[in-house]
């Protein structure tokens, strides 16, 4: 409703303020730094942005003004007329029109200069263009000074207008000045209108609200009307006339019976007749006021006026087309009587009892709490007495819950005995069928023997594996034939395998063993002094001379050679090396070489 917008109109700044605000906004909200050496598109963009920003700001603000101010064609005719009376329709429209023109002009300016800016080839040129654009826009605004001022005043006045709802129940007080309209409204509502002995105390419309028959009523107080033709009426009177003309209300024409207002009854009646056409279609009541001063008994105005208006309004509504639609849809449905049977409303027993208990204080049953209080210290909470079991004497049983790791509750079943019987029968059948017989075939001796042999075999294999792992020979291995096989071990092994090794003195291996021994001994005796005894095994061939004898002329040379060998080994022996190839370092980082200050010495020794 147009009502509320009047208070929400934005403040209209003066032209100077307007310009200041917009320019300072441009200054703050757009980038400020630009240099000559920037790329030309950047410079252009910078200045174009400023121009566009200013234009945008002006445009926004002016549009807002234009939309905020009410359009006289769009609002209720009462307000339109009121505004016309107060602010002059033409002037108002003109002002808004000017603003609109200004807006369009500013847009055009901005468009032109932005177009021109595209051809600016230096910072100076662009800057000048921008200056020109902003200058023109501000000049346009300067020219709007008058309109803006006028609009500001209109806005201020508009926001102070009383909020009269043209559509609700209204009582309109009219009459000559100083007849007592404002006093009446003060009495009837909470309004606080100025009451003074001079005429035209009330210079504009005032609204008050009152309650009657649970409804809100507006009471509108008008400035007094004088008796002259419409054209000659001033603004103040025109307000009253407007109100009369447009508000659908009950009119209370207040007359001063005592003639204290300065007009005679006849004059007042004349006025009444003059403005009678305005009362068309409105319930009218003539109020004789100030009758305490001059007593003429009259009926109380209030009730009659309100009732009359209400009736009038209802009548109006009933006659209107809209009501018919609603009436058609309203229908009170009553079930038709089917037969003579009486069907009273049904109230359930519980509700009836409840109602009864509420009415009469029936003694309630004894609660546990009562019992506790009675028994004091002896009281034991025994909920099991309320249990509802098949046998009442089982109430205090201790119920078993667990048996040997099983929950008894999992087994509880009314049919358990039957199931158990079935199970037992099944079990019997199974036993009979022989499912549970462990067929341990008494294995025949052969099988047992085989098992034993297998066991022995496995053991033997494991032993062999372990022995071979124990040997721990890394590197080149000597062939098996190098080793001398003892007669004893051979005979033992073969004996374990089951062969008969007794009386084997004549066997080949025994003879050879004896022979080799004797040969070795004999050789020892035959040895010459020059020939140095060497450890020879049977595997070595006798024809090839050993290394330390080959190429050696005489014992003297041999002695020398040996001496050389020993000398060479001295160093290695001293260092505890196994041989030439032993490069093992026992201590990679000996402490004495890596600690302390580097005084005399080398890395190898200190």
């Amino acid at each position: 409703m147009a009502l509320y917008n009047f208070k929400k109109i934005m403040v209209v700044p003066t032209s100077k303020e307007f310009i200041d605000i917009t320019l300072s906004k441009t200054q703050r909200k757009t980038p400020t730094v630009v240099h000559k050496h920037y790329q030309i598109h950047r410079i252009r963009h910078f200045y174009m942005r400023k121009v566009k920003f200013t234009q945008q700001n002006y445009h926004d603000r002016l549009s807002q003004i234009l939309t905020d101010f009410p359009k006289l064609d769009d609002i209720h005719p009462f307000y339109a007329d009121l505004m016309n009376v107060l602010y002059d329709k033409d002037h108002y429209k003109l002002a808004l029109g000017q603003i609109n023109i200004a807006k369009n002009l500013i847009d055009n300016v901005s468009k032109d200069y932005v177009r021109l800016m595209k051809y600016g080839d230096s910072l100076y040129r662009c800057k000048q263009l921008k200056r020109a654009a902003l200058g023109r826009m501000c000049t346009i605004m300067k020219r709007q000074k008058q309109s803006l001022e006028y609009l500001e005043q209109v806005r201020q006045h508009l926001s102070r207008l009383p909020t009269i709802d043209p559509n609700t129940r209204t009582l309109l007080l009219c009459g000559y000045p100083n007849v007592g309209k404002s006093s009446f409204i003060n009495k009837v509502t909470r309004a606080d209108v100025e009451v003074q002995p001079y005429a035209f105390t009330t210079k504009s419309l005032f609204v008050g609200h009152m309650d009657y028959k649970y409804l809100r009523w507006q009471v509108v107080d008008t400035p007094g009307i004088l008796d002259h033709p419409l054209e000659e009426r001033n603004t103040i009177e025109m307000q009253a006339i407007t109100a009369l003309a447009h508000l659908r209300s009950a009119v209370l024409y207040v007359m001063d019976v005592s003639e204290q207002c300065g007009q005679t009854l006849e004059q007042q009646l004349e006025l009444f007749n003059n403005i009678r056409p305005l009362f068309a279609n409105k319930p009218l009541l003539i109020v004789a006021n100030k009758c305490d001063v001059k007593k003429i008994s009259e009926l109380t105005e209030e009730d009659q006026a309100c009732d009359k208006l209400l009736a009038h309004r209802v009548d109006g509504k009933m006659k209107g087309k809209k009501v018919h639609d609603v009436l058609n849809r309203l229908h009170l449905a009553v079930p038709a009587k089917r037969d003579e049977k009486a069907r009273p409303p049904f109230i359930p027993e519980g509700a009836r009892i409840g109602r009864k208990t509420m009415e009469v204080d029936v003694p309630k049953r004894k609660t546990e709490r009562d019992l506790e209080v009675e028994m004091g210290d002896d009281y034991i909470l025994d909920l099991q007495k309320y249990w509802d079991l098949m046998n009442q004497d089982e109430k205090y049983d201790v119920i078993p819950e667990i048996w040997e790791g099983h929950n008894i509750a999992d087994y509880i079943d009314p049919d358990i005995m039957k199931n158990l019987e079935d199970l037992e029968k099944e079990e019997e059948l199974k036993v009979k069928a022989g499912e549970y017989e462990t067929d341990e075939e008494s294995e025949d001796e052969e099988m047992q023997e085989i098992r034993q042999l297998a066991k022995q075999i496995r053991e033997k294999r494991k032993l062999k594996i372990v022995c071979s792992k124990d040997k721990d020979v890394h590197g080149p291995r000597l062939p098996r034939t190098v080793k001398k096989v003892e007669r004893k071990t051979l005979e033992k092994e073969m004996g374990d395998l089951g062969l008969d090794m007794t009386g084997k003195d004549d066997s080949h291996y025994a003879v050879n063993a004896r022979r080799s021994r004797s040969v070795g001994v004999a050789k020892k005796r035959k040895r010459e002094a020059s020939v140095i005894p060497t450890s020879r095994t049977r595997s070595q061939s006798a024809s090839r001379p050993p290394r330390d004898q080959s190429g050696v002329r005489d014992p003297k040379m041999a002695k020398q050679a040996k001496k050389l060998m020993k000398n060479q080994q001295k160093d290695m022996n001293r260092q505890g090396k196994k041989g030439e190839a032993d490069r093992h370092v026992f201590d990679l980082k000996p402490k004495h070489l890596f600690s302390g200050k580097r005084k005399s010495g080398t890395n190898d020794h200190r």
Partner: protein
Amino acid sequence: MRIEKCYFCSGPVYPGHGTMFVRNDCKTFRFCKSKCLKNFKKKRNPRKTRWTKAFRKASGKELTVDNCLEFEKRRNVAVKYQRELWSKTVEAMRKVEGIKRKRQAQFIFNRLKKGKQLEKEEAISEVKKNIHLIKAPHAGKAKVMEEKMVQKLQDVEMVDD
């Protein structure tokens, strides 16, 4: 008071033991010990973790379908306490337990029979292959041969005579 089942290993969770985990969809998981809980948190599938009962049942290592197992079941029907029913139930439990154990044992025994057969065959093949490790092929043969020869000679002599 109930003995619950551990979600992971299906073992008994006595009152006052173990932990319970409640998921956002209101499903509760009870665990008998932290081992089960840790495995659960690692998102391990109890049906694939070899030491759990769930695995054993799922891979057919234990008796799964049997009438005696139908006795212990969570029935969602409340039965009012009757002394005789309860006492009979305890008796029945004893018997059922006995039968159950027998049957479970038999099941496992049957399962392991095949192994025994294989063992036998293995022993036989082992002996056949590796008898030489403990017994020389001609172990007793020399003596037998000798005896035979002696016998022959004697026969010949006898014949001569």
